[in-house]
């Protein structure tokens, strides 16, 4: 029996995306290293200064070592999250290159999904290398998973959360049918979601009601939640709460994405392929 055309397309497109991303070896290496290392490093310096200034052993529910481990874990997991710059759909809409989806037997989302699959494969590989390297080079500092199932739970949550980000960014890109330029919306979304996910500041440093409220959002369960499970600050069984929150988010985002794309395509008047 022949494979479903969309599945075949997904596999083929994922292969192309993988070839493309690995063709830029040096740039890929520099970007990954810079992205993975610099921000957490700067944030760690910041928190070291905070602890030193206060002379405190525990702030925000963690000691300095615990805070450092949390920040590294968050940066480690953040590398798995689908990035807004991974999609160029808005540009295609603006330039008039989406006509092909009106006439050819393929779905645009399948290509975006292929990019998500490629991204997830590549970044999981990078994260694994980082994890091994970090554990060997920085044994006292690197956030070692408390148990194999904690690592698995964190990975599953991060990849499921990353899928939510794909849906969100696809949706925002589709708004280009109306707004023509949406990069500001994408950047805005990145700022807000990274803040809500506890990347810029651990949730334990935020006011209690706000921190509790953020635990109902998929950004938290994509990054900070998995980090806490990985470090044993949350029980592994909380993975079900996380998956439930992410599941609800997907249930809302998926139909929304379909409706916006369909309506946008209906008013599309470009001529390029």
């Amino acid at each position, binding site marked *: 029996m022949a494979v479903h055309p969309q599945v075949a397309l997904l596999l083929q497109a994922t292969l192309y995306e993988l070839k493309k991303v690995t063709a830029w070896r040096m740039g890929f290496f520099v970007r990954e290293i*810079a992205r993975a290392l*610099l921000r957490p490093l700067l944030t760690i310096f910041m928190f070291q200064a905070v602890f030193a*200034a206060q002379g405190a052993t525990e702030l925000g529910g963690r000691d300095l070592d615990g805070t450092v481990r949390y920040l590294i874990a968050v940066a480690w997991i953040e590398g798995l999250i689908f990035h807004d710059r991974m999609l160029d759909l808005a540009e295609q809409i603006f330039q008039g290159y989406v006509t092909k989806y009106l006439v050819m037997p393929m779905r645009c989302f399948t290509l975006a999904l292929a990019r998500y699959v490629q991204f997830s494969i590549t970044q999981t590989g990078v994260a694994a290398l980082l994890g091994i390297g970090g554990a060997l080079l920085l044994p006292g500092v690197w956030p070692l998973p408390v148990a194999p199932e904690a690592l698995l739970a964190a990975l599953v949550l991060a990849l499921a959360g990353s899928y939510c980000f794909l849906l969100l960014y696809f949706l925002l890109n589709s708004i280009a049918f109306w707004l023509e330029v949406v990069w*500001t919306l994408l950047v*805005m979304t990145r700022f807000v979601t990274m*803040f809500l996910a506890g990347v*810029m*500041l651990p949730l334990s440093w935020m006011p209690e009601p706000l921190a509790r409220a953020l635990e109902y959002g998929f950004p938290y369960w994509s990054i900070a939640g998995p980090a806490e499970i990985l470090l044993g600050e949350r029980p592994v069984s909380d993975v079900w709460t996380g998956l439930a929150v992410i599941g609800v988010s997907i249930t809302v985002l998926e139909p929304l994405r379909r409706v916006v794309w369909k309506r946008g395509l209906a008013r599309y008047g470009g001529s390029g392929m």
Partner: protein
Amino acid sequence: MKSRFAQHASILGQYARAGLARRAEFRVEFINQVVMDCVFYLVHILTFEFLYNSVDSIEGWSRADMRVFLGMVFVSDAFHMIWLGAAWFFSAELKDGRLDSLRLRPAHPVLVYFFQRFSPEACLNMLIALSYLVWAWVSAGHALDPATLGLFVWAILLTWLGRVTLAVLFSILEFRFLNSDLSRLFMLLSIETADRPIDVYPRRLAQFLLWLIPVATWSYFPAALVLGRIGPGFAALYTLFFLAFTVLVMRWWRRSFRYYESALS
């Protein structure tokens, strides 16, 4: 014949006029960009406000000092958004050979290229950033006398010059490593680094950011200058150093431009 200054001012005026006309076509985008920068400000403000709920000071920076520092971060960022948008496209345009017109040199090529994407919406953000900076200053109980205003003008001009100089410096990498997009990478890393006072970094990194890649000019040094955290003698000396650094970078850029080859026009 126009003087050199008038010629440069006239080019900037034309860029501003074109920027206004362009943005009038994308009205929603105008609002979006203003809101986007406000979100950027809000996220930074909340991060530090929440931090200061647990601590009194960070490396000698009190909550009030940090607000002034953030004001400088926002003013610096708004300047980049107003005038230096072209810096993000340099790598691609160099690769595609779209810089031929710079060879005609109606003015300094750095001004002609880097200032071409004027953003009127960022002017509104500059107003918001300046308002926050003034609020941070006044709410901390500092005076707003003529001497202080002079200090602010000095600090703000320095942060703007710092933005231009480093944008140009990073773009030099593109001449050597074509299509590497290293200028964008270094720009992003610098933005990340400048978001916190360099006092929180290890000493060697702080010195690096002060003297070798002077990201400190974007926010740390101007804020420290107005807050009196550095003496006037050192401030004057550092400003002279940075002016000399800028001249060297501009000359280096012009020399590097000789490597540019293109068949387009």
